[in-house]
């Protein structure tokens, strides 16, 4: 299945891209994506799937948009 991953802020420079479509096995979870991208999951972060926050164990579906962001405070 295909999932669009959008990275925010510093994660862009860790993973080397800002947004791309990735191929995943059906039933892949949010943590699987973080693992695949080699992002440090121990750093506080927030993941949203189609605009809503999701748990690491949540399974993704074809066509999802996943946004992975560090915690921010704004200006």
């Amino acid at each position, binding site marked *: 299945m295909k999932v669009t991953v*959008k990275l*925010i*802020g*510093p994660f*862009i*420079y*860790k993973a080397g891209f*800002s947004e791309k479509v990735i191929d995943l096995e059906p039933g892949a979870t949010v943590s699987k994506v973080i693992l695949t991208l080699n992002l440090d999951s121990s*750093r*506080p972060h*927030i993941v*949203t799937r*189609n*605009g*809503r*926050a999701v748990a690491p164990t949540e399974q993704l579906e074809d066509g999802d*948009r996943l*946004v992975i*962001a*560090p*915690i*921010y*405070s*704004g*200006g």
Partner: protein
Amino acid sequence: MYGWTGNILRIDLSHRIYKKESFDEKFALKWVGGRGFALKILWDELKPGIDPLGPENKLIIAVGPIAGIPAPNTGKTVVAAKSPLTGGYGDGNLGTRVTDQMRKAGYDVIIIEGKADNPTYLYIEDDKVEFLPASEIWGKGTYETQDWLYTRYGKGAGLLTIGQGGENLNLYAMIRSLEGRAGGRPGIGAVMGSKKLKAIVVKGSKPIPQADPEGMKKLGTEDLRKVQQIDRETGWSIQGTTGVLAWCNEVAALPVRNMRKTFHPEAWKIDGERLNAARVATYGCPNCTMRCGITILDHEGHKSELDYENIGMLGSNLEIFELDQVASLNYLCDDYGIDTISAGGTLAFYADAIDHGAIEGDFRFGDAEKAKELLRLAALRDGKLGNMLANGSLRMAREIGHGSEAYAMQVKGLEISAYNCKFIPGMALAYGTSPIGAHHKESWVITFEIKQTERGSYGPEKAAKVIELQRIRGGLFEFIVACRFPWIELGWDVKNYAIYFNKITGLNWTVEDFWKVADRIYSLMKFFWVREFPNWNRQMDYPPMVWFDPTNADKEGPIAGKILELDKYDRLLDYYYEQRGWDKRGIPTLKTAQELDLIEEATEVQKFTKLE
């Protein structure tokens, strides 16, 4: 007494006199510094009902015990006065060399009273104060003013200046320092302008009194290095605060079109990634190793230092998606010395009001060139339109009518910063209860709310989180006076600040002691408002009504059809008031005043309204 100089410098511009006064340990321990000192002095010394732009208002510059000491990120100073924009308590902080220079000159607080006959600037060097003519710099922007002063006093001098916005009493004029630092959103720069005070230069040469200066120097220097290391590992300062724009766009929280919309397909054009790629310089505050001032060239070729609020309020909220043009608007605000948030909010309101037929005009969302012209009119109070724009969105709405107050995006008269809370109740509460009017700096609950709670819920845990963050952000960091970013962005433990505080003061405080001071300050800030507005009611803590209007709900996207609900927001306010020990009107009760050692203040406020 270690940690405080124990001195207040009182300057009377009307009579061109000054004197050094002292404060005792009791005052220091009760109010700690920065916002705490400023608030208590304004409460004690201002008569209620005074004209904020009259000579009776006082401009307070205050630092705290950790300010200026090399440690993570201690280069901030608080500026405060009765706000001409809101009529209530107003303050802000900014990164400036004044922080350590005023401590070295021997002061924790500078009080500026009265009004000069002619444009004046102050030169403060240790025990000496000079009142100098500012005729050569009056009418100039903040950049030229700073250059003029640097030429005379050197780059190491602490400078605070206003631009034409402050001179012309634009109600959201700020005080500026360094390349792009600004503070005092609720018109503190206009208060300075009303006193005909163009600039303050501070130089000091004395040591800052500390209980353990050697230990603090070692620890502070090590910790500055550690914070720098964490920043490098996490990469936070690559985009700094501007990274948040892309995220807000994804979760439908971006201000777009006077906050009518919550995301925009072109937002990427002005996001942190583009900004970092366009970077020509990086600036920051003193004593900081995670410098967040990303600087790019604007449309006219000026260096313009931007943060998230700037790109959100002058970019997406005006539907201007050309980065160099957003940078131009930001440069103009900085040079005129007006707040980018209120300027963006007011211009967006004007465009929205034209769209809705409430006023006639030729400004449209997306028109960067016209926006530049409007900023000039607002900063100079040029003509009828300039005067309206200079007064901020609430006054403008009241003047033009046609129900436009509902979409003047402000609370208590201060424009909402760049988080669109159309469907984020806890963040709306944070804006509603921010003690200077809508400002994110007091409490930023949005990620907690979206990550850890049901987004559309209104439970007591959201009120508790708002208060927890207000204690740290609007409390601790505003009274010890330091930048909150090492803690909030890099996870630098808040307990470190207790360690610094104790090393500097020789005391043995815990963070719980800080929370008590924070609660005291929040309750006194509320008393300040109530004394100015004796018919105080909970509606003063409401966000704008358009956020409750179902016809304003998003038609598509993650929050399509969703909107805040007023009865539930009221319940959330109740939770907040209960947890703070405030009554249903949002006023601290007598019992709370007693617990917070505010009995004298409660007696004073009872002259204006009865406390429960």
